[in-house]
């Protein structure tokens, strides 16, 4: 089935206030910065954002936080070389933080997409991040129960989509994208190119088209890390 190819603006138009939105990327690698900027322009507020980090510099997720659109961030590593925006918002109490070990974060999203409502992991046992969670010893090792992490929307930077929404990713920009594409109700794949059906070898498809609800075509997408190093600011 051919998936709708849209501008980032149209792709994010119906994200409501209060939505939970996954945003792909490990730092700037795989960050769909144009689609995040479209979300800033759109104006939705009180968002819960799921990302590995919490924004860098004055663009993308950092700008979304700076503009006061984010109530809560679920992430593993909010402290980066230039994460002043999040740090100020967090220290002043304007943004809530749910800190999740990175492997647990990606597994919780994978579980959401895979119909696994919860799983046991040894990660975090004996640390403050395990407090308040159900624990159980399995095969002699204490584990914590972690729940699937779902979202209303996912904004994911892929590389190439075919018209059916099959996706490939570029190098390590793959990171959280494939799991996020399975974990959100409405998934928006920002891609560099929309190729004809059949352009991607079936064995090389990373995200099968069933997971892709919308395609946001941005042919000349920026690399967020490069923008940050240039000192870019949005809007």
């Amino acid at each position: 089935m051919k998936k709708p190819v849209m501008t980032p603006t149209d792709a994010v138009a119906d994200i409501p206030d209060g939505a939970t939105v996954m945003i792909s990327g490990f730092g700037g690698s795989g960050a769909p910065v144009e689609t995040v900027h479209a979300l800033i322009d759109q104006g939705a507020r009180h968002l819960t954002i799921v990302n590995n980090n919490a924004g860098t510099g004055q663009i993308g997720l950092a700008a979304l936080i700076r503009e006061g659109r984010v109530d809560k961030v679920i992430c593993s590593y909010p402290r980066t070389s230039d994460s002043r925006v999040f740090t100020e918002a967090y220290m002043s109490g304007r943004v809530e933080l749910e800190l999740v070990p990175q492997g647990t974060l990606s597994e919780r999203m994978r579980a959401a997409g895979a119909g696994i409502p919860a799983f046991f992991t040894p990660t975090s046992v004996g640390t403050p991040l395990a407090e308040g969670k159900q624990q159980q010893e399995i095969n002699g090792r204490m584990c914590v129960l972690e729940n699937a992490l779902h979202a209303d929307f996912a904004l994911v930077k892929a590389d190439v989509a075919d018209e059916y929404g099959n996706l490939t990713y570029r190098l390590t920009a793959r990171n959280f994208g494939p799991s996020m594409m399975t974990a959100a109700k409405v998934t928006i794949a920002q891609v560099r190119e929309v190729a004809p059906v059949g352009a991607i070898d079936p064995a090389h498809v990373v995200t099968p088209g069933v997971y892709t609800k919308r395609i946001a075509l941005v042919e000349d997408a920026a690399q967020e890390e490069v923008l940050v190093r240039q000192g870019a600011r949005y809007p």
Partner: protein
Amino acid sequence: MSWKDHRLTRNQMAWRAAQDVHDGAYVNLGIGMPVLCSAYVPEGRHVNYQSENGILGFGGPPPEGEEDFDLINASKGAITLAPGASIFHSADSFAMIRGAHLDIAMLGAFQVAPNGDLANWSTGEGGVPAVGGAMDLSAGAEAVRVLTTHVTKDDAPKLVAACALPLTGLQVVDRVYTDLAVVDVAEGRFHLRELVPGVSRDEIQALTGAPLAMDDVKPLEAPSL
């Protein structure tokens, strides 16, 4: 001369840690100093470096100006693909990590205790915590080795009797590479294995927050880096 004049550079610490990686090892390099290790594979050895963001098989940074920031390590620094590399998504990367398929995890630290406890994600109230993949790596890697300065910026020991900061992993650290020493963590004790020339045993003990066994201590030497 103070002990401060004898400290290894960050690259020298990474070089030293890389010397202990055996041929054929699969090694995760964590955020911070550990990522520097990828540039220092010993001659004649093949080491498979893994990064949590989803790559197995990479080398040091490319020449300046040739960085591709879609190809990065855990510190978000540009890297190069090693021959025979593979790329996978984050959930598969942590399956590899948590599933105990990696021989060694190299991590940074705020504090390490003689029982192997590691604290490296939170400085407590008043800061922004950041755990990344450290808890998964602590839970999953066969061996956890730490790269850290021997003391904090305020000269407080980072090798301590018991971690005061929130824990990352319990009884996980095997060896610590500092800018002054190589310290094994075994049987509930710190064992000083190597010490930079120019720093005395009394000095290193004074900079360490728990007793250092010193049965067999060699000089800690690294090339200029």
